[in-house]
């Protein structure tokens, strides 16, 4: 029999080695998240999964589950902070959902809807981020990057290529590619790479796909991300879980 902790008043069982996030999702409890991905080590950078554990705020994707913890997640105080985080991500990049081909499949957009982000909240920075369209089959639209490093982790840990990295610090931090020219066409990326599948927003795109998926059939047209994430969760209980979102994309 496994140990348990409390999440918003519910009893959540967990296996040794699971994080609060993993145990919660596996038990059917959604905690909003963006940079967390079942196939990669927790990153803890987006902070959307922040919960209160015994009164302290902490990222649930990095917090090891422990017996007897009292975890608060779905409370207005934290949801207000999550809304502000999503608003800041929208303000920091150039996210134009109306003409973005990732619309309907975008985690950031889905989080915005699910958290009821109804206004921009912050003045947009409108950064100047030219596209890298140099590769014949792959387009990089840096305007939409949220610095989650999923592509960095996928390229390094799964593909063994190190195509992507983050450079700069603070507000100037940005995604770069590993080639002397700085262009994607001079890297060894391939369409079959894991890094091609994991981008939660519309940065890494297979060219000439565009809007071929009709409205109504896109991932978050069907169900909100809070329900979709739970559909994926049971597959995480075993070691080395996979992500249906990535499988859809491949």
């Amino acid at each position, binding site marked *: 029999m496994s140990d348990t902790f409390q999440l918003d008043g519910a009893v959540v069982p967990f296996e040794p080695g699971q994080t609060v996030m993993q145990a919660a999702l596996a038990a059917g409890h959604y905690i909003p998240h963006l940079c967390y991905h079942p196939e990669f080590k927790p990153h803890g950078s987006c902070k959307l999964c922040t919960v209160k554990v015994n009164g302290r705020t902490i990222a649930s994707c990095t917090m090891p589950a422990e017996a007897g913890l009292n975890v608060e997640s779905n409370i207005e105080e934290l949801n207000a902070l999550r809304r502000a985080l999503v608003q800041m991500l929208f303000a920091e990049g150039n996210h134009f959902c109306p*003409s973005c*081909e990732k619309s309907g499949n975008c985690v950031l957009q889905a989080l915005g809807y699910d958290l009821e982000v109804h206004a921009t909240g912050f003045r947009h920075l409108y950064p100047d981020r030219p*596209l890298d*369209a140099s590769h014949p089959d792959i387009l990089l639209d840096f305007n939409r990057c949220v610095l989650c490093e999923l592509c960095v982790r996928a390229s390094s840990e799964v593909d063994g290529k190190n195509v992507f990295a983050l450079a700069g610090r603070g507000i100037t931090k940005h995604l770069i590619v590993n080639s002397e020219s700085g262009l994607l066409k001079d890297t060894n990326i391939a369409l079959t790479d894991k890094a091609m599948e994991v981008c939660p927003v519309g940065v890494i795109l297979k060219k*000439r796909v*565009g*809007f071929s*998926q*009709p*409205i109504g059939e896109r991932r978050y047209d069907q169900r909100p991300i809070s329900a979709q994430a739970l559909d994926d969760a049971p597959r995480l209980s075993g070691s080395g879980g996979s992500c249906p979102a990535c499988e859809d994309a491949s």
Partner: protein
Amino acid sequence: MTADLETAAHPENLRRVAIDPVSRVEGHGKVTLLLDENDHIHQVRLHIVEFRGFEKFIQGRPYWEAPVMVQRLCGICPVSHHLAASKAMDMIVGATLTPTAEKVRRLMHYGQILQSHALHFFHLCSPDLLFGFDSDVAKRNIVGIVAAYPEIAKQGVLLRKFGQEVIRITAGKRVHGTGSIPGGVNKNVSIEERDYLLKDIEQIVTWSQESVGIARKLFEQNLNLYNEFGTFKAHTLSIVRADGAMDLYHGGLRARDMNGKTLFDHQDYGRYWDVIFEDVKPWSYMKFPFLRSLGPENGWYRVGPLTRVTQCDFIPTPLAEAQRKEFMAFNGGSAAKATLGTHWARMIEMLHAAEQIRELLNDPDLQGNELITKGKRQERGIGVIEAPRGTLIHHYKVDDNDQIVRCNLIVSTTHNNQAMNEAIRQVARQYLDGKKLTEGLLNHIEVAIRAFDPCLSCATHALGKMPLEVELLDAEGGRVDALTRNSSGALCDSIS
């Protein structure tokens, strides 16, 4: 009074009257008049002060994004931009559409024509037409129509709703969908979707027929007014099918001069610049397209429903064709030349759209599964379509990295720029010359502009309540009178 009223010979001694802003699609326009001491008019200009910037900020974007991005130019007829850009991108990817793709797109387009024409006639213009141009402003709006003519108002709403449903099923959303993509479409029409539309189509055709009757009756009842109001002679441009039939989705360019002589016919729109060029004037942000063979001064022309109905050899659906013949023959052809005849022509097109939708819904190709094709990649793509308001041209250049490097859009209202100027000049001669400013007078200008269904009237969604300001300045530039209408429709005399 000068002959053309575009530019006064001696503006320094004239007083200026401005209607500013006249709302346009998500932008602004204004009308200015120069009058002498005896209130005679020397200059009238419709200035379109829009600046949207789409042609610039589409640069650098991947070409497959264009059909979805550029449709945001408009919230009333985005399908026109969606399809014109898609047609241009078909050229870029070297595609010849499958029957399913072309028919789904045509269905989307005729749904668009239906909803846009219904919106314009019933929601935006019927208060002017049914109550009178200078009728009680408190009632001259859609609410007044609902109270006085509930059946007409209901039909207008439901006609538009049906068109929007056609768009939703083919494009994914009622406004700003994604159905049309380079080389085809992203979905077909299922049997269930087809049957959902088929259950109402007979009613829609019937109502569309009755709408033509309303437009005709209005013309008949006010024959002298409708014949003359803002009427002028113009060259005309539209696309027509290879056999000369009306085709709002595809065809070659046809132009006639103001006396009906054909200037060119079945011109490949892929080289539209051989026959059309754009002039720039210092007093407007909008360009002035002209027919090259006639030059910038005399080559301006009119597009839209009146042009299309009078310029095609026939309409390829029986009910609309019968109405076209009656329209052309009416009163010795006077309606076919009248600016206000545009409303009647628009309703004939709406009937044609309803018939086309019925025909397409019964075509099994809509359920086909071959949705996309591609061929030899091209550098340049041009898409032309007859939007509800007239000929719409999209022109793109795409580089080897799939990024758009150049874009030129000539939208329907731009084609009609000079024609609208002519119409308000004619109204100024007929109704304003020597008169004191009133709300009804202002509305006469709007009525003339509205006949063209420019994005101006679409964008406001506030019939008869466009925020307008008219200022009377003396020769030294001092303000002697001003009349303001705010967004709630209230009039205020700022001086007295």
